[in-house]
């Protein structure tokens, strides 16, 4: 298998995800790393945010990751052979107010990665745009829409649930245009 030093973000995430799963820890990749993966690194992230629906003990996580060569510093896990680092966020796995029931899986030579689906990845970025006014997150949501199959109708429904239907209607044309570029 490829050395950690030569792994791409997606390969590294898959390597970690598979190892964790082997030890009964089912963590789902979320956040900016998913954007990076769905956009072929058009947005580069070094921060791999994992979320567990049913959190395992911190001690168990430390044991498994330590056996893989990670060390913990300031609640993040770093590996000596790469700049990518891991953060385990408090669950539950959710996009805004909604729980995530369906995740995606991508397989690489280094393992199988469980991550947010492209549609949930867009919702995750839009939550940051809606609630923090972070325009970079809107750009990331559009980039994902341009590069992966995204259900815009479901995003509209979810936006309404977040109390942001008017805001979604204001930016909807950008999503339709992004989807057209993909087609």
């Amino acid at each position, binding site marked *: 298998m490829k050395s950690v030093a030569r792994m791409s973000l997606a390969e590294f995430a898959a390597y970690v995800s598979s190892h964790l799963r082997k030890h009964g820890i089912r963590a789902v990749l979320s956040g900016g790393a998913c954007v990076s993966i769905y956009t072929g690194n058009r947005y580069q992230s070094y921060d791999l945010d994992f979320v567990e629906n049913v959190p395992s003990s911190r001690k168990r996580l430390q044991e498994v990751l330590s056996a893989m060569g990670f060390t913990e510093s300031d*609640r993040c896990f770093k590996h000596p052979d790469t700049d990518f680092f891991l953060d385990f*966020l*408090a669950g*539950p796995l959710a996009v*805004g*107010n909604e*729980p995530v029931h369906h995740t995606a899986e991508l397989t690489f030579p280094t393992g199988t990665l469980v991550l947010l689906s492209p549609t949930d990845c867009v919702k995750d970025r839009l*939550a*940051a745009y809606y*609630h923090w006014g972070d325009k970079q997150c809107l750009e990331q949501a559009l980039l994902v829409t341009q590069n992966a199959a995204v259900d815009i109708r479901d995003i509209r429904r979810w936006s309404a649930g977040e109390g942001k239907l008017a805001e979604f209607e204001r930016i909807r044309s950008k999503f339709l245009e992004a989807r057209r570029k993909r087609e």
Partner: protein
Amino acid sequence: MLEPLLGSKNRERILLYLCGRPEGYAREIARFFKTDLDPIQKQLDRLELGGVLYSHQVGKTRLFGLNPRYPFLPELRCLLEKAIEFYPPEARENLVITRRRPRRKGKPL
């Protein structure tokens, strides 16, 4: 009031305080409840780590607020608002009323 549920008096104080305001900082919360700063800071950190609060730095001050992305926020708000109703009128007023609109420095109150 919610201490048996939340497991800490200071955690309850923080959540009640932030329920009535957009944001607040550790010293302000400690001063409001006439309590020590250190346990308030510890609970703020724990609540942030758990995703219940967010924080950001403004100058030298770290401001905290209820995290709008916390999936249980609407339910938590309902619980906190109900708890506030059980406080005596004066305490209730103090908890929810705060002057946030701008006021020129030096202008008499």
